[in-house]
């Protein structure tokens, strides 16, 4: 049996009819067409599927889509201004914090959740914020450096703070 889902995704209203067991990730990718969030482990270990739900990080692979009804989801597609990149994305590119790129959308979302709440963060804060995101390429150092540099910039996205 399917149930109606009405959810705001990246500021736009989206609707779908969804089975109870469907994950938020599968609905985002297959019904709404947003393939930024990735399926890695599919059980909340790797963080490749990370999105923000009402501003807080959530593993979309393990969150029931129907439980987002009436709420606001932000995916990596929703973080950049129309004409550029979010500072976290820019600094990840500049630092070499992206190699294969599969983990990057999730990393961006976890980092954004941190910077939105605590732009005055230190390295330990960044490591804790990214603890649920695996990267098998970079060794993390460049990612952490990039997030810290993004935090030092004044414009890391107050406009889309929850």
């Amino acid at each position: 049996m399917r149930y109606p889902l009405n959810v705001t995704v990246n500021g736009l209203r989206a609707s779908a009819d969804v089975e109870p067991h469907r994950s938020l990730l599968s609905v985002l990718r297959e019904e709404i067409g947003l393939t930024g969030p990735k399926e890695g482990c599919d059980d909340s270990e790797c963080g490749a599927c990370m999105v923000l739900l009402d501003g807080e990080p959530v593993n979309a692979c393990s969150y029931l889509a129907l439980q987002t009804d009436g709420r606001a989801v932000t995916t990596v597609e929703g973080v950049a201004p129309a004409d550029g990149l979010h500072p976290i994305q820019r600094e990840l590119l500049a630092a070499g914090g992206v190699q294969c790129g599969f983990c990057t959308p999730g990393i961006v979302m976890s980092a954004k959740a941190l910077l939105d709440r605590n732009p005055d963060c230190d390295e330990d804060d960044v490591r804790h914020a990214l603890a649920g995101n695996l990267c098998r390429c970079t060794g993390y150092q460049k990612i952490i450096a990039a997030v810290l540099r993004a935090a030092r910039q004044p414009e890391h996205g107050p406009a889309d703070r929850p």
Partner: protein
Amino acid sequence: MSRYFAPGNAAEAAELLRTTPGARVVAGGTDLVVAARGGKHPLPEVLVALHRVPELARVRETEAGIILGALTTHTWVERSGLVRSRWSALADAAAMIGSPATRSTGTIGGNLMNASPAMDLGSPLLVLDATVELRRTGGTRALTVAELLAGPGRTTAAPDELLSSVRIPAPVPGTGSAYIRLEHRRAMEIAIVGAAAALRFDSRGEIVAARLALTAAAPVCLRVPAAEAGLLGRRLDAEALAAAGRAAVAAVRPISDVRASADYRRAMTAVVVARALTLAARRAAAGSSVPGPDHPPTATGSVQ
């Protein structure tokens, strides 16, 4: 065919549990849904999602203590200055659970009802004398956390009962509490073994109130009355720590699993007990404690 309900109040949720065979509640889903993803067991055929029940997310502070709605998230607990200063052991535990995503999604009610012997909130709630309210159609009842927890994955709640809130009494002034766990890494971790302690001292530095509980050391999180009694009337010196450790080791019934052997858990029980008691005493002496929300104390010094 699977069915889904998202009731708007607790009475309706309880009635669904009573009238719908096989119905299970889902709060954040960090255990229920993740277990299904990982292939442990399929999702229940009938889901009663609780996220639309505002009364279950309410936090009430009273003279007598604090009442946390079942949907209170680990993130809320770890960020609460009030919880960090008055019920520090609970804030320690909430800050250690999983990742930021686990904590923003997972709830205190779900953590208890999932009833893992390794749950981080169990021992802190035991030493803080917490009670839970179970609600069913036609009434509620209050249980201590020890009365609720029945075994790995098992509680004494009936299938038609809903855990609605957790009540934690205000600590007697001068009480310090702490939760410590042994872990292989600082995040995305499950306790190898853990201990929570709450202590209060008199003006001569002798212990007048003691609570000690263990995590991942038995089929349920459990208090150690023998260790508590042995601490009363003495200073927390090396001898007292060793005696508490011995009493704790005598009380454990650990298992061997992928994280550690039973022998290792038994040996490390004394270590986490000493660390938890020491930190609780330090906080009692300081009058309060404010561990930063993102820096839970850890038993290991390793970094990610």
